[in-house]
């Protein structure tokens, strides 16, 4: 941890408003994700967490506002620069989004064969390692349709980690996982951050993970359509007086 300057910002979101057509999902979001942080995006379902992620990773242009990576505004950059920024991302989609015509091994191998000069044998080894990390050793030759939803999720995580990206975005990584796998996943996320210095942005509503791994967080509220809190979730639960946040963080029994 000491290797990384805690104050150095990695992602800055400034006055972001996101909308589908004229239907505004969230407005005036501003927060900073520091390098090496595990940053939690939380909020009730349907409040726009996935949409925020899509805006951050460059799949959907914000209606207003900026997303800065190391000071460079993503949406104001040219296509080549954007591609370079995106190259440093690893993304887990909410539904896994594994390429259905490829086996798990091929799914994880594709980023490796696109962006590295590794040989086939080396890629195979790396793929097996990544799959083993998420608890899927031995499932290399399975197609996504032949495994369960939780396993697809984990394979998606293996694919997101394939290139050892600088920033990992996880959309509800532990939804659909059993408690043991979910805890192992939390350990994996912390380990990736500690050993590789990866910055991790996690959308989740698992309270256990929020408190176990989160360094910083933003809370989106569906009703007022904006963020109502930023900060370390462990501090939020102690200090926040907002009933919505207290309710969320204590599962409604304060």
């Amino acid at each position: 941890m000491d290797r990384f300057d805690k104050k150095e910002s990695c992602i800055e979101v400034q006055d972001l408003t996101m909308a589908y057509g004229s239907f505004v999902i969230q407005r005036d979001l501003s927060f900073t994700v520091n390098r090496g942080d595990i940053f939690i995006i939380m909020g009730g379902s349907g409040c726009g967490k996935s949409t925020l992620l899509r805006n951050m990773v460059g799949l959907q242009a914000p209606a207003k506002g900026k997303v800065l990576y190391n000071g460079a505004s993503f949406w104001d950059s040219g296509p080549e620069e954007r591609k370079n920024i995106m190259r440093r991302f690893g993304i887990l989609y909410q539904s896994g989004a594994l390429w259905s015509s490829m086996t798990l091994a091929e799914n994880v191998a594709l980023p490796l064969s696109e962006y590295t000069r590794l040989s086939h044998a080396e890629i195979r080894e790396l793929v097996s390692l990544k799959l083993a990390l998420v608890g899927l050793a031995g499932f290399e030759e399975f197609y996504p349709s032949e495994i369960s939803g939780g396993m697809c999720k984990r394979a998606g995580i293996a694919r997101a980690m394939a290139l050892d990206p600088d920033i990992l975005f996880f959309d509800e990584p532990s939804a659909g996982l059993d408690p043991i796998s979910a805890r192992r996943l939390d350990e994996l996320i912390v380990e990736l951050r500690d050993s590789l210095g990866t910055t991790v942005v996690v959308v989740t509503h698992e309270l256990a993970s929020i408190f176990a791994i989160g360094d910083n967080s933003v809370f989106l509220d569906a009703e007022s359509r904006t963020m109502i809190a930023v900060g370390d979730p462990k501090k939020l639960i102690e200090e926040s007086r907002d009933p919505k946040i207290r309710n969320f963080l204590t599962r409604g029994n304060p």
Partner: protein
Amino acid sequence: MDINFDRTADDTILIRIGGNWNIENGLPSTDEFERVAGTKPLPARIAFDTTQLGDWDSSLLAYLSKLTDYCGQRSIAVLRQGLPEGVARLIELASAVPETKDARKERHRTPFLARVGEAVLYAGESMGEMLAFTGEAALSFSRFIRGKARFRRADLWLLMEECGAQAVPIVSLISLLVGLILAFVGAVQLKMFGAQIYVADLVGIAMAREMGAMMTAIVMAGRTGAAFAAQLGTMQVNEEIDALKTLGISPMDFLVMPRILALVLMLPLLCLYANFMGILGGGIVGVGLLDISPIHYYHETKAALSLMQFLPGLIKAVVFGVMVALSGCLRGMQCKRSASAVGEAATSSVVTAIVSIIVSDAILTVIFDRIGI
């Protein structure tokens, strides 16, 4: 289900609910209540007495939430103490999350002129999208030529098998039958002049120049174009295309280019094959029905068809290949995120493909006529 309303002195309506409430007996209307609540002096609160209540289900809940809504709008207080505990909790739950107002899609009738205007704007927009897509495909093709396009060779081979070898049976059947039909129609006329032998010319030239390419393209539009649209559409639904984009791999290079290549390579081959099957079909009619000897039919066909006669058909086949693949991929990539959208994508890919086949056929026929091939 029994409902009685009692106006007690202190501006309260006491609602007595009794009997068994079953959804199969329908929902009671709130008219009676509204009449009672609407008479002056206006009530300030309502209370419930449910001591006579038997079994109940959602019909009671629906009735009560309608009452609650009505009272909410007129600021009449609702005293829930009289309700069974379960009912009170469920109503609490149902009203816990306020309705998101502007999320509800409003259905309103647009006037005729506005609809025409919208349709025209939409047509213009989709024309633009089509052109943009064609342009992107051209850029992607130039990357392919320079060896910079990234896709998996294995995918290309698989696609070539899917839209080549696997299409042979259906193409055989269709083109054989088209040859038969052409020969039949021609024979009826030509027999009147005793010129049956020219059936060979008719079938040969029609297949080689026109029908071979056209029929193959239409079969492929229904078979392969729709499959492309459905595959890409499903990938869109599953966020698989997003996953490619964020990896920095262009879906154009990775998914669209191999499909266009496979069809453009395979359609001319299928077309040549269809030409021969059509001529064979013509031969069957000639030999079987018109008493032309097989050798005679063969020589007549050979005399009528110089190699140059195959050129227009082959050029058309290449163009149709591009059209079918482009429309399939375009509709697939435009697909929204739902199962019904995938169905629409498949349908509209076939329509787009067939329209563009016919239009480009007309244009090409005029061009070939002008330059004399």
